[in-house]
């Protein structure tokens, strides 16, 4: 998809919140968090929220970078690879203790949660989302 900034923000927030939320509900019980389920849910949902909040900021940077491209496009693979910088930043913030409500998180639990969620959102945005929302791709990724 070729989003506009508004479309990027809407898609990021809605798809991460709804689809990411469902996925987090499903995957948290099997994550090697070493913590009670209630505690794990709290951590995974705060991490998901962080992906959304920081993501909104990242989107402005990506939008800026798009301006240097003649086609004003965003190659499909970049949508996947930006997970690397975004994931690393969140991991750094967790370890610095700067994400409120999140204590120590085992590395594998974070990697599994973040990577699967990211991949799911990327894959859905690059195809299946067009099935229920036929106008979404022509509207620069806007739902509203």
């Amino acid at each position: 998809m070729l989003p506009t900034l508004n479309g990027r923000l809407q898609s990021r927030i809605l798809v991460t919140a709804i689809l990411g939320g469902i996925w987090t509900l499903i995957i948290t019980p099997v994550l090697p968090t070493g913590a009670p389920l209630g505690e794990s849910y709290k951590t995974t949902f705060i991490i998901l929220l962080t992906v959304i909040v920081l993501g909104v900021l990242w989107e402005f940077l990506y939008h800026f970078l798009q301006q240097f491209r003649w086609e004003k496009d965003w190659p499909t693979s970049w949508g996947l690879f930006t997970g690397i910088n975004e994931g690393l930043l969140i991991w750094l913030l967790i370890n610095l203790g700067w994400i409120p409500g999140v204590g120590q998180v085992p590395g594998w639990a974070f990697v599994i949660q973040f990577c699967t969620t990211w991949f799911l959102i990327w894959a859905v945005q690059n195809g299946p989302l067009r099935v229920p929302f036929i106008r979404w791709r022509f509207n620069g990724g806007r739902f509203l």
Partner: protein
Amino acid sequence: MSGDQPLPQSAAPTTEPGDLTPELIDTDIWTDEMVARAGIPVVPVPFVTVGGGIGSFVTVDYLRIYGVPAQQIVVLTGLDVPWQSYEYLTRVSQIPRTERLRSDSQSRPDNIWGFPSYALSEAFAAKSLKEFLWPLWNVFTEPILTNYFTPRAGQAFSTMEKEMNRIGYLQSVRKGQVRMVRRRAGGGYYTILTPPAGAAPTKRIAYQSQYVHIAIGYPGLRLLKDLQDYRERYRDPTKVVNAYEPHEQVYDQLRIRPGKVIVRGGGIVASRVLQRLIDDRDKYNLRTEILQVFRTFYTGPHGKNVFNRRPGGHGWAYQGFNYPKSVWGGQLKEKMAKLEGDARAQAYEEMGGTNTPFRKDWLEQLKRGRSQGWYREMQGAFDSLRPGPNGAGVVVAMSTQHGALEEYADFVVDCTGLEADIRESRVLADLLDHSGAGRNPKGRLDVNAQFEVIGTRSRPGRLYASGSSTLGGPFPGVDTFLGLQISAQEIADDLARLGFVKRLGPGRSIAQWWRWARNRPI
């Protein structure tokens, strides 16, 4: 006046019953009585689409999926199948079914959702692991590590055929030549069809509909003046050809004896013609020499500032598709939609210009040709063409940056694709003259964002148009597969607002997609 005397207008001696009368021809808005007086049979139907090419097909596909029954739609066309003209043009311009088009993976005229994309479908139809992985890798890494994925022409045609059968498209088709569309007093339109001789009792049939959609494609090909002059003066259609005309004889001749070809143009057709020439050269060990002439010669990236630089080099301007990719839904679509008049024309100018996709195999061939000395490129504009000494070959007189120059060649393949004015089409000329249609800043049919032709409304009816005759409107990519779908969706949504059909929401969309995926008829 005595009652026996016929009305002068309806009884002109040349008019037979069931034909257009001078009264009809001269009247902008027709009453039912006028049509009845002319003896033209009237067929009422809610929706008429004129053209029957891919533009009509895609629009009918949308409407059928939204829920319009086939009986409420009539397609007026001279074509047997929607892709007939398109396939003819691609084939003669050197894209047979096995070669790839210049179209995005998600732009599928047979699938309004664009999912699965052509790449995904190609992968799942593969017979080997390599053939399975390649399209997926291609769409994943495009356009950075690989060139844009593009579907084979054959894949586009065969999938369209499948969808055509699924939606029962041919049920709606009525063959013939459309002569005109006129507004009807009391609302809606009359579309006059001339059926094939002998196919109907009258010369004309009038389709009376609330809604009309016009998608008649390119009004025609226009040859540059130098080429026209040569044709007219020397009556030689074989040595100087336009790439959109059948010109297989050029390749045949070059296989018989070595020759030199001048290729004019820097678009995709020039690229394809060069590929054919070089493929043949390699395959049959020919000694074909090629000179390519660009009117605008790009030596590198070009554009007005760092945010608007298009890649280029060796004469070419490189761009993935006909337009920068974001015109089909991204930033440029949004930007263009806000522009009017001169500002819009200017924006078209900036992103327009002839260009070709960046394809590694093409670049390799030209690089090889350059280093081995059988291919060269230059800047120049043709002044005139004349037969060579003793009638052999052609001499091209050109103006270049370094002054006048003459070049001899055995063949000239002209790859400029100028489109004729919309007046060349009788239907469009009639719309301009009688139905209130106007021209947009690019000189084509002026449509609004819903693809309604501005000025032609006949309440409660509406007249829409899509495809290349509307180029220059608020949405730029109209003459592309995806552009036709964007137009069709706008039209279908507009018709939904008018209550003709129910808008397609997420639930019904999923259900309809599931039917599509299982190839279940609608």
